[in-house]
């Protein structure tokens, strides 16, 4: 939000962090890279546990038992046709020992039953508005097919984008790129996402402050000792990640946190896991 401030990480450039070697051999340096943890936030609320369901059921039944009497006389004024319709559909009171006040048996819970809407007054628009709401299923086709490239799976979980690029090591990781001259973390990561996944994605960078820092040490590289990667957090609102031809993306996947643990390299996963959402 506060983009007027300059965050500390953005002042670092590729050649800033040269490291002097003790033995006098030519100094190697770390490559500075920017990465993106691109995620799709949960779209629906999480599935309730059996205990949670039972708890809310108990509380709502208790609420119906203890709540005030529904003031039907306010909505269905006395002496109107509407009142007739309302009283006609009300369930019969307990015959044994009713404790009745305002047509309500105070010994039992209150379930308010509304009269059905009269068909004559129904217009096309009102019929559409008052039609019974049928919620969509919690699972989608992508869930059944287990299509890990689809954004329409695991609707109650956060999905994270990981990619596989052809390079020295063919391993899954969050997308990252080298910071070019004149770029900062934000500009290089937006440039990279367009380069890797196309221009169709509607993406929101949460902050200019990195959410994760990862230090990758190379075993055999003439120029660099390793790479220091600063990951920014971002959200995808709509659009699709479509791997571009010249980007070198071999494969990509949208995965939950648990699924990531089996895809990512063990050492990488251990560093990354803390920055990911549980839900």
């Amino acid at each position: 939000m506060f983009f007027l401030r300059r965050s500390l990480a953005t002042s670092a450039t590729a050649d800033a962090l040269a490291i002097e070697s003790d033995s006098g051999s030519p100094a190697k340096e770390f490559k500075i890279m920017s990465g993106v943890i691109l995620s799709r936030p949960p779209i629906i609320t999480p599935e309730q546990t059996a205990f949670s369901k039972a708890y809310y059921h108990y509380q709502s039944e208790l609420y119906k038992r203890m709540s005030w009497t529904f003031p039907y006389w306010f909505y269905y004024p006395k002496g109107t046709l509407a009142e007739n319709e309302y009283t006609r559909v009300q369930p019969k009171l307990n015959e044994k020992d009713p404790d009745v006040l305002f047509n309500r048996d105070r010994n039992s819970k209150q379930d308010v039953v509304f009269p059905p809407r009269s068909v004559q007054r129904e217009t096309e628009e009102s019929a559409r508005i008052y039609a019974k709401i049928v919620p969509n299923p919690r699972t989608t086709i992508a869930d059944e097919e287990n299509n890990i490239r689809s954004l329409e799976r695991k609707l109650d979980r956060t999905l994270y984008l990981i990619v596989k690029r052809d390079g020295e090591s063919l391993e899954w990781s969050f997308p990252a790129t080298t910071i070019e001259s004149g770029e900062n973390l934000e500009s290089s990561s937006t440039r990279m996402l367009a380069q890797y996944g196309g221009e169709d994605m509607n993406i929101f960078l949460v902050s200019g402050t990195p959410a994760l820092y990862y230090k990758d040490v190379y075993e055999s590289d003439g120029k660099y000792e390793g790479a220091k990667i600063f990951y920014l957090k971002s959200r995808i609102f709509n659009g699709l990640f479509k791997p571009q031809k010249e980007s070198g993306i071999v494969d990509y996947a949208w995965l939950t946190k648990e699924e990531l643990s089996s895809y990512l390299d063990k050492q990488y996963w251990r560093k990354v896991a803390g920055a990911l959402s549980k839900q």
Partner: protein
Amino acid sequence: MAFFKPSFGTDLRRQSTAFFQCRSLHSSAPQFKSPVSIVHPVHHRVRYKKSILHPKYQTLLTIPKWDPRSHLFKPQAVQPSRVKTHWETTLAPDLMLANYSHNELKLRGRKHQEWDGSSPYHVNRPLRSPAGNAMATPDILPRTFRTVPFVTSIWVNTFNHRAVTEHAERNIPSTVMIQQITGVKPAPAYSGVSIMQWRLRKERNVGAVVEIKGAKKDQFLATLVEVVMPRVKDFQGIANSSGDKFGNISFGLDPEGVRLFPEIEGNPDLWSGITGLNITFVTTAQTDPEARLLLSSLGVPFYGRERFHNVPNLDGTKQTRKKGVVYYENSQE
């Protein structure tokens, strides 16, 4: 001696203040004495319900409201809150990261000041008012996981002008209207000032006010954002100039906007003389831009020029300090 009706409002406070101010040996001391006393020897000058002190009522007094055995108990959590879940899973981590900055220090607000002790009369004197004769302001703490903002409550109030010009009974439909929309029983609102042009006098009942908390607050927020605001004609959003500098944002809805609440819209014939609403979001955000960030992530639109204040100043931007609030020159448009 005149019999005083029990009034626990301003009269009682005035009298007890007067009691401390006058000398009790004075002949007029009894008339300044507080009308209620629970210290021995007890000589009440007003009727006092001693029966509530009976041991049989002790359980009623000691059982807290949340305990199902209490006669005041009301089940609150009847279903999980969609807004709260969204805040916990998605918003809170994002807000913490968006507001965070490295090496942030506490920004001290204006406080009451000590006397310098140059005069013997400074002993036991109340503290000096804050610099510039302004109000004391809270400290701005570093943005960490402890200071992630959330909406604590929403205040809704209405002013019914016809209650002033015509009759106080005009307040009844306004009060019922707020109760319908929020699901919480409102309290009467009284005018604080006299305005001759409006024929308004001080302390007249001119409307209703309610504070919504918990699940009802989340429900109200969701209805406002998803049902009402998108359909208000020519609605730009809440002005960025709104706010009290300490994270509380207010705005107004006109009667046409209030008619869009489902509770009113479902039965429009029932309502006459709908009045507008003043709505205030009370948040734990430390500054207004943070509160706006929170609310806009919950779906509330804003418009206008954003002006940052009390932001940690790391890159030496020129700042001005006004009434305990630090402003920055190159704020975003």
